[in-house]
């Protein structure tokens, strides 16, 4: 066990991680942010999603200053509804990350499955799947997301819309992103399929499904991991953008993007903290994930590290 841990610690990946202060810092930041988001109900001082706990009079409290009406002090201030910014950001990040992770997982499962299948089956199946991917590429993520949102809006009853919003977001971001995974998985798998261990597996009598999942999949994990990391940052930003455009998370259960949309209208009027803190959180989150993805790509592709 210890030897195992030691081997991981001593691996090239780990070594390059230990050599890169940028990677370590961004890993720390993203871990802290993700843990905070997961633990939001435990560590947040308030529950901003429970409207019955809100006191409107706390609205627009400045950070670290007592509210003129209620005398309460909020570390990062409050927004226009009297919601504690810190709690709102923690909960908002939870939503952003949840949407991001789910969307990436959805896109990854769909894309990798199709990509692997296309690469392994080849021929007509490959041609058709990749044509579909081409068509999908015609529609940039933002457009697909808005369209799906618009269509879903036409279908879902009003009282379900708020609950649906999150899932519609996940679906639309995921659907707009699967091509990335399909292409990368297919590209990597095409290389693997050529390799002789696949023929060896056929020779010993393995069925195609098992060859794809037990043999090829583990070997294409690295590039998929890189794409997944970068996609996570993209998904978080896309979610924020959609929420900003008003087709995302509802204001009663705001994500970081919704918070920025709300904060934006108070930006010119001096209540800078309502925009500043969510925006900074989003930037930190996206930047640290992006930096990790960048590092991962370089570390997994040693040729680049000249």
């Amino acid at each position: 066990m210890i030897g195992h841990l030691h081997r991981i610690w001593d691996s090239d990946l780990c070594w390059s991680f230990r050599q890169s202060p940028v990677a370590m810092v961004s890993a720390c930041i993203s871990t802290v942010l993700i843990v905070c988001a997961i633990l939001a109900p435990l560590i947040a001082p308030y529950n901003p999603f429970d409207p019955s706990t809100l006191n409107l009079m706390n609205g627009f409290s400045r950070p670290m200053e007592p509210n003129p009406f209620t005398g309460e002090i909020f570390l990062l201030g409050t927004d226009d509804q009297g919601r504690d910014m810190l709690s709102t950001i923690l909960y908002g990040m939870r939503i952003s990350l949840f949407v991001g992770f789910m969307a990436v997982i959805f896109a990854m499962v769909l894309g990798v499955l199709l990509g692997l299948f296309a690469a392994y089956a080849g021929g007509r199946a490959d041609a058709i799947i990749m044509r579909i991917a081409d068509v999908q590429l015609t529609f940039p993520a933002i457009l697909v997301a808005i369209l799906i949102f618009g269509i879903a809006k036409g279908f879902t009853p009003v009282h379900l819309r708020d609950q649906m919003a999150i899932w519609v977001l996940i679906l639309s971001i995921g659907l707009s992103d699967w091509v990335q995974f399909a292409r990368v998985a297919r590209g990597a798998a095409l290389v693997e399929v050529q390799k002789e261990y696949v023929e060896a597996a056929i020779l010993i009598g393995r069925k195609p499904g098992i060859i794809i999942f037990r043999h090829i999949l583990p070997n294409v994990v690295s590039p998929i991991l890189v794409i997944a990391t970068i996609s996570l940052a993209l998904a978080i930003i896309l979610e924020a953008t959609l929420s900003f455009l008003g087709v995302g998370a509802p204001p009663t259960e705001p994500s970081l993007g919704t918070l920025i949309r709300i904060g934006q209208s108070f930006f010119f009027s001096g209540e800078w903290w309502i925009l500043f803190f969510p925006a900074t959180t989003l930037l930190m989150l996206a930047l640290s994930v992006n930096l990790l993805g960048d590092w991962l790509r370089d570390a997994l592709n040693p040729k680049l590290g000249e």
Partner: protein
Amino acid sequence: MLSYVFRRAMQSVLVLLTVGLVAFSMFRFVGDPVENLLGQERTDADIERLREQLGLEDPFPIQYWEFLTRAVQGDLGISFRQGRPVVDIFIERLPATLELAFVSAAFAFLFGVLFGIYTSIRRKGFLTNVILTGSLIGVSLPTFLIGILLIYVFAVELGWLPSFGRGDVVQVGRWSTGFLTESGLKALVLPSLTLGLYQMTLIMRLVRSEMSEVLRQDYIRFARARGLSDRTIYFRHAVKNTLIPVITIAGLQLGSIIAFAIITETVFQWPGVGLLFIDSVQFVDIPVMAAYLMMISVMFVAINFIVDMLYLAIDPRLRDGKTSFS
């Protein structure tokens, strides 16, 4: 070579047909057109009559065919919200978006390629680090936030540039252009910067990684072994080989600028099709949404086609049809 062009053209048509199908399905199944066209006091007879009139009783493929025929003739239906032919609305709004997209694309491509080449040649160095850090912050900040910050700095605090709209436009035929007036040009600066920044970052990173890849190729090592100067190696051998894969992806990126303009147009109240689209989503104005979809894919296909033809010009391997990039 001709067969290559033909194959590409066929693929484009296929893509358009598929998108058309999506658009048509939206028409047909999202939001009952009868519901939208008839008022409150409709009778069952009215509904019957209208269904007949609209051809809704025909089999699906026939309806689709007629939809396509009309679309090709420029009839994309009537906006539920504005009650005008969608095509008219688009013609009115399109110049704004196209001018914005054009300027942003030119900006993104020029600086993206420039920075990409620079950072792949100078792998370490102050300016490289600045560019790379800047680009990462660029992709980590949502476009709308960048837009808001730019407005705050350049329009509100400094007052140098307008914060919204197109400024004064000049009507040239049916095309309204902002290129001919000072205020029109000024108004273009912030939105196109906002829109182009993200694309520039992507192109830059792409050029950088492709160029780094090319610089590791044997023929570059061999060129060094032949004693060629760095200039020749970088700019004659490496850049041209880099641009071949970059062009496709950059083409796709630039195609998506039109769609990404939705955000920029919202932030800057730019009266283009993106703003129209986001409004139409709010109002579930299906004909406008469908038409927007069609428009985006036509542009995309057109750009792709142009890119493919550019390939033919650059890559001799393709001209002989020996390899195909699909």
